[in-house]
Each structure stands twice: as C-alpha cells, then as structure tokens.
C-alpha cells in the first residue's frame, strides 16, 4: 500500500480498489473472531482453502476471513456472497458440500440454515434471522464485510472518509461541536458526554496533550470491545485520529489487555498499515496535522480499566487510581491534559462525522443517543454480541433478539454493568435501555455486559461472586474499598454457607454506604451495587439463606443436599460409577442411595442421571429423607416380572 497524499488521492484510490472488485464474484466469508475460533473456525478455514484448491476454484472464488458477526452461539458462521446466504455452525466436513452446491451450483444447503425454534421456519439471509432483524448494527455491522487485516477492505467500505472530512472540511472546534451535538455518551460505563470531555481537554492549558483508547475491557462476561478491536481496528484508529485533531493532541496510546492476543495482533497490523498509507505520522493526508500512536499492553488488572489507574499503568507503575480533581482532561498522562475514551466510543466517531450529529440523534432516547453494543450472555438462547438502538426494552433484547431462556426455564434477572452494576428483575423488563433509566432501577449501563439469569441462579451467590472478584481486583490502597469489600465478602460467604445471622443484611447496607461514599475511585464506589440491587429485589432469597438455611435456587453448596428419589431411580449405575468419592451405594437392580457423610456435593450425579429418569434431586432447607431400608431397594422390572 502506498502513501496517500490528499483527500482526492484517497477517493481515487478507493475508486480504484472498488473497480477491481467484482460484486458478483462468488466469495465465502468466515467469521474469525475469538468465539468462532473457540468453536473451531481454524479448521474450517483450512478446509475451505483446501477445497478451493481441490476443486480448481482458486481465482474464481474469494475467501475472506472476517471479524466477529456477533451470533457467537451459532458459530462458526460462513456467509456466501453475492447471494448473502448465511450458514451456521459450519464444520470442516460441510465445506465440500458448500463449495459444490452453493458456490458452484448456486443451491442452498438447507441443513446449515438458521431454523426458528418456535416456527420451524428457515432463514437464508443473515438479515432474516430474528437475532439480527431486531438489531441496528451501525458500528458493529462492518465487521462481517471486512478482513480486519486488510486496509483495502476498510477503504472499500468507505474507511477514512470521515478523517478526510474532519481534517479538510472542519475545524477542530467544529468537530467538537458535532460530537457534542450528537450527545455521544461514553460507552465504557460511566456515560459521560464525550464532547464535553474533548472540549475540556482542548481548553486545558498546555502544548502537549494525549488521547487514549481504553481497551482494558474487564467486566467478566463482556467482550464487545475485543470483537471491535479484532474485527475492525481501523474504525477505532480513525475515531482516535479525528479526536486527536479536535483536541490538539499529537500522541496517542491504545491500551489493550494482554489477554486479547488477537486484538493486539490486529491493532498492531492496522497501525503499521495506517502509517504506510499516511493516515498516521507527519502531515496526514497533506493536512499538516501530525499524529502517532503507540500500543501498550495491560498486564492483567481489572482496575486498570479505571482511567486514572490506566494512566498509572501507562507510566509503568502499579495501577492505583489517583484522586480526582484534578481530572485527566487537565492533568492526565505525565500530568498533561489527556482524553481517554472507550473503544466503542471512539468507533462511533467516524460514523458521527460522516452522517452528522442530526442523524445520530435521530436514534435513541432523549438522554441516550445512538446505539449500544451488548454482550448478551448467560441463560439465554442466542448468546452473542448485539447492537441495538438506545430505547429498546430489555424484554425485546432478551426475548426478540436473544430468543428467550433455554430449557423452558423461568427468567429471574438480567445483570448489567458488571461488578459496578445491578440485577434487574422481571418487573422492570419493560424499561428502555437508557443510561438514566437503568440508573433509576439500581443498575448501570456499564460497558455492555448483559448477563441473563434464570430460576437456577442464586442471587446471594451472584452478589458474593462479584465481591470475590473485586476483593482480588481492587488495588487495595484505600480502606473503605479494601476493608469494606473484605467484610462484605465475609458476610456474604457466611450467608451462603448457612452461617448468616439476623442483622447481616442491615450490616451489608451500612458497609455499602461507607464503601460507596468514601472510596478513592469508581471501583470502590460502585462495588456495593450488586449487593444493594440484589437486596433490593431479592431480599427474600437473603432471608431464606439466613433464617431457614435454605437456598431457593439450590446453588449454595453448604445449603443443599443431593438425594436420589427411590420412586424414580432405575438403578442404571451411571451416577454410582461417576461419583468421584464413591458415595453412592447400590447395584444393578438396587435403588441407589447417596451416603450424605461422604457426599462432597460436586453435582456429578445430578448431571449424569439420564433426563428420562431425573431421579437425582436437590434438597435445601429441610432434612434429607432417611434412606429406605435395604430390603426395599430391589427394583422389580415389569418385563422380567412377567
């Protein structure tokens, strides 16, 4: 790729690239995001390359490995162009058929299409699949059309047009005005208006200023930023360069978690490509504006997602947050004015510059404009990454896009905002997804993690889980956070082990207040949220644990016992053999009995008992029925009794 010297040059090159591409040429694309990788996309890719070679189609059929499509539950996903036929859960064994039937004969391989579980209807195109139909994939959509390692692909879909527009048709102040007008609120969790932050950094005194991409996505269960960085790194780069121009910064950093090796790789490639083409470096596109980017890896600390902690980490120190004020906009990296935004926030910028603030504000609610990418995971049928307009209801996301709860189980709560967020129960499912609406019900938008929970989830356990996470991830510097979390975790652990006592809930609330009010940073200040929201909506579960020593969801190990129902046990011996501590007594026609003294509550017997028998039961809050006498344990098989 050669250096591009002006906007006209850029458009010329773009036309050139497009003219060399034949829209009607058959192309097979394969989603190569991390989730599909985990589902085996490498082997599928190898099979595709082999088959194309074998069937003599090299040069006639293109093969493109794209970024994440979002429907991770059904990966690996392959889409055949130009018809845009979408095949799901593609295995290497399917490739030969796809190549012959679809690529050559233009026929559809029915069995690989999406089937609606309710109607049985099949969908040929991605856009017909309910999962996608209800989304608005403005930022995430391009992932499926490009190979993230190819800057030509990015240019082919209009990449860097926004940069050219900003540099040559707008002043930095106009750019900021546009971003302010769009009312783009930070997508990293706090939802602070990005335009205001940019303006503060621009107005701060000083020549040297920094802009930073925060890709330290740490909320467990959220992986939107990862897929954006892996799947369309240039969109983030473009947003960053535009932001740098607006703020007056000439040096940028991209802070990526080291746990995201593919993102690190693809961003590294994108930066090199951008440098080669002249989108980075000196005199970008001939505008006179200079800007360089360095990538910096995280080293495994959730707290470094907090912006001042991130700055400390960039400076080579332990990720301990700094007091604010002063804010990074005035005193940030190396005490210079700095603007830090989340990956998704930066990725929205080219779109806003291209389409304008008015278009952006036409989507969403009064207080929350544009779209949001969520990772819809947990007890939901269609697990994956979804991009929806702000204002859609939680119910629509979970049921229309997510396809509801698997196994016919009952919805219990949806957790948003990770360890800083809260659990939202059924009664609030019709609220609109909006920064302020979510805050009102005790949750937060957060970075986008949306964990669906069902009747088998224990809410006390959920609160304990988040506190255990934070107890390890807190930097530990300040007393209210470190000690507050320590004591709250102790109380919650005791409650989940049947050692809870009267007054524990009140003590949790009191501790929450101090931790929230007096902590140094947002990690501490929001740490009580999962505890407070679960107490608010599921107090009955807490009380059952404390007063009755009962776990209503049958999760807390110390409070449950496993019991084999003698009426339904068929003495098949499966659980007996699988029990790791040989705690099950029985024989071929002898009803099995669990020795409660030996039982370690691992749950293996419960898992392996064939569903048609379903003889293993969980009991909580009541004594285990005594085993039936040995003589009564013989099963008389009806067929044999004849």
């Amino acid at each position, binding site marked *: 790729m050669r250096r591009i010297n002006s906007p006209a040059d850029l458009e010329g090159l773009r036309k050139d690239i497009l003219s060399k591409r034949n829209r009607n040429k058959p192309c097979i694309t394969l989603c190569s*995001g*991390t*989730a599909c*990788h*985990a*589902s085996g996309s490498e082997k599928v890719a190898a099979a595709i390359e082999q088959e194309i070679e074998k069937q003599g189609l090299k040069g006639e059929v293109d093969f493109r490995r794209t970024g994440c499509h979002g429907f*991770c*539950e*059904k*990966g690996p996903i392959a889409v055949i162009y130009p018809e845009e036929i979408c095949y799901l859960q593609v295995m290497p064994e399917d490739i030969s058929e796809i190549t012959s039937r679809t690529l050559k004969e233009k026929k559809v391989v029915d069995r690989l299409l999406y089937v609606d579980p309710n109607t049985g209807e099949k969908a040929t195109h991605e856009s017909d699949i309910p999962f996608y139909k209800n989304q608005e994939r403005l930022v995430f959509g391009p992932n499926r059309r490009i190979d993230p390692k190819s800057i030509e692909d990015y240019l082919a879909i209009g990449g860097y047009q926004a940069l050219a527009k900003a540099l040559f048709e707008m002043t930095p102040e106009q750019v900021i005005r546009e971003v302010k007008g769009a009312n783009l609120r930070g997508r990293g969790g706090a939802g602070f208006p990005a335009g205001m932050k940019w303006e503060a950094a621009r107005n701060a005194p000083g020549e040297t200023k920094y802009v930073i991409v925060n890709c330290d996505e*740490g*909320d*467990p*269960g*959220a*992986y939107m930023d*990862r*897929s954006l960085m892996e799947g369309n790194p240039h969109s983030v780069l473009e947003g960053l360069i535009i932001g740098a121009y607006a703020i007056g910064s000439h040096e940028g950093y991209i802070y990526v978690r*080291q*746990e*995201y090796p593919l993102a690190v790789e693809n961003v590294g490639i994108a930066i090199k490509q951008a440098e080669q083409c002249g989108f980075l470096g000196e005199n970008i596109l001939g505008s006179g504006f200079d800007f360089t980017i360095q990538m*910096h*890896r*995280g*080293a*495994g*600390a*959730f707290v470094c997602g907090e912006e001042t902690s991130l700055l400390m*980490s*960039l*400076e*080579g*120190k*332990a*990720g301990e947050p700094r007091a604010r004020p002063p804010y990074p906009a005035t005193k940030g990296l190396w005490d210079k004015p700095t603007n830090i935004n989340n990956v998704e926030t930066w990725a929205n910028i080219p779109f806003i510059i291209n389409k304008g603030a008015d278009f952006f504000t036409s989507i969403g609610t009064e207080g929350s404009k544009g779209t949001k990418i969520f*990772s819809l*995971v*947990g*007890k939901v049928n269609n*697990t*994956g990454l979804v991009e929806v307009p702000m204002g859609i209801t939680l119910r629509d996301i979970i049921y229309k896009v997510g396809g509801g709860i698997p196994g016919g189980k009952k919805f219990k709560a949806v*957790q948003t905002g*990770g360890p800083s967020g809260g659990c939202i129960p059924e009664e609030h499912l019709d609220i609109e997804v909006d920064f302020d609406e979510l805050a009102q019900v005790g949750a937060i938008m957060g970075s986008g*993690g949306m*964990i669906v*929970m069902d009747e088998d*989830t224990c809410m006390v356990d*959920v609160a304990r*889980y*988040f506190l255990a*996470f934070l107890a390890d991830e807190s*930097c530990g510097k300040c007393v209210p956070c470190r000690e507050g979390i320590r004591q709250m975790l102790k109380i919650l652990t005791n409650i989940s082990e049947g050692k809870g006592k009267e007054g524990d809930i009140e003590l949790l609330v009191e501790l929450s207040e101090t931790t929230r009010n007096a902590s140094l940073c947002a990690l501490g200040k929001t740490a009580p949220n999962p505890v407070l929201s679960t107490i608010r909506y599921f107090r009955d579960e807490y009380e059952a644990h404390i007063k009755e020593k009962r776990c209503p969801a049958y999760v807390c190990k110390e409070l449950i016992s496993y019991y084999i129902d003698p009426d339904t046990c068929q003495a098949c011996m499966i659980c007996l053999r*699988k029990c*790791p501590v040989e705690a099950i007594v029985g024989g071929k026609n002898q009803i099995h009995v669990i020795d409660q003294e030996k039982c370690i509550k*691992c*749950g*293996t017997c419960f*898992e*392996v008992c064939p569903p048609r028998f379903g003889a293993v039961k969980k009991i909580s809050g009541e004594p285990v029925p005594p085993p039936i006498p040995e003589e009564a344990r013989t099963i008389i098989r009806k067929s044999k009794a004849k």
Partner: protein
Amino acid sequence: MKARSAFPPSYGEGAGTGIMARKKVRTVAMDGDKIDQIIDKHQGDASSLIQVLLEIQSENRWLPKEALDKVSEKLHVPFNRIQHITTFYKAFSLVPRGRYEIHVCMGTACHVRGAPRVLEKVQDLIGITPGETDLDLKFSLETVNCLGCCALGPVMVIDGEYHGKMAPAKVEDVLKNYD
C-alpha cells in the same frame, strides 16, 4: 503481614510446596543478553517497565529474580517498585510455570453456567489452586475473567486449545489428552 520476602529463594521453593527445595531444581535464569535486548528495544525508558516485564515473561514463561535485578539496574527502577508490579499484575509469574497452562474462565456468564464446579474438579484432579503449578511442572492453573466465548460456557483453555461446554464430569477426560 508476611515477614518473608515476596520472592522465593532461588531454589524455586514457591512451586506449591517445599518439595522443590528438596529436589534442588536449578531453574536457569534467562540469558542476560536477551534481557538487555528487550530493554534496549524500549529505549531503556523506565515507564516501559511493564512492557519490558511482559516480554521477559512471555519469552521465559516466568520472571526469575536475576532477571528482575537486571531490569532494576538497567531501567533505574527501585526494586520495591518491581516487587509491587510483579505481584500486582496477574500476567507475571515469579515461579516457573508448567508445560500446560490451564485457564478456567470465571466470567459471569460462565459462572452462572457452573464454572466454579469445573474449577473445583480441576483443582481436585491436579492438586493445585489457581496461581500454582504442580510438582512435575506439568500443569499451571489460572482463572481468567471472560475469554469472550460466553456462548460456549463454561470454558477452559489449555495451551491455547479451547474446551467449551465443560462440566465437572468431563474434566478428567479432557486432562487425559495432555501428557
């Protein structure tokens, strides 16, 4: 309050129990030149401390004290800061890691699908807890928060290979593949 130094004596005592000391396993420190190369690549800048350590960790799979002394000297960083950073950030290991690194995802989605039981099973079978390495230096165990494969949860990654839809009953068979 621990009185002993954060760093195990060079006989590698830190691998779970004191048996390593009895075995007197000499863990060889990384080549000094290699370390110099890594530091020079970052222009000897003290703020690159974390990046330098990440590279050494990745090359050597752990951070021997000798390597850290060298970094302290060459980057002019006081040793207590290195001590803090190598124990603050999870990416660093001050003890040798096993041949196969097991990462069990404990993200929220995997958690609600039963990841803690999977972790327990792994712990029982290998005899180590997260952060430790077994006596034969075969397996190291770590928990991870969200690998981004929530659709396949619970997920376990061993040596880069993803094992999805894990359950306690499946753990033994999966581990058998690694000898």
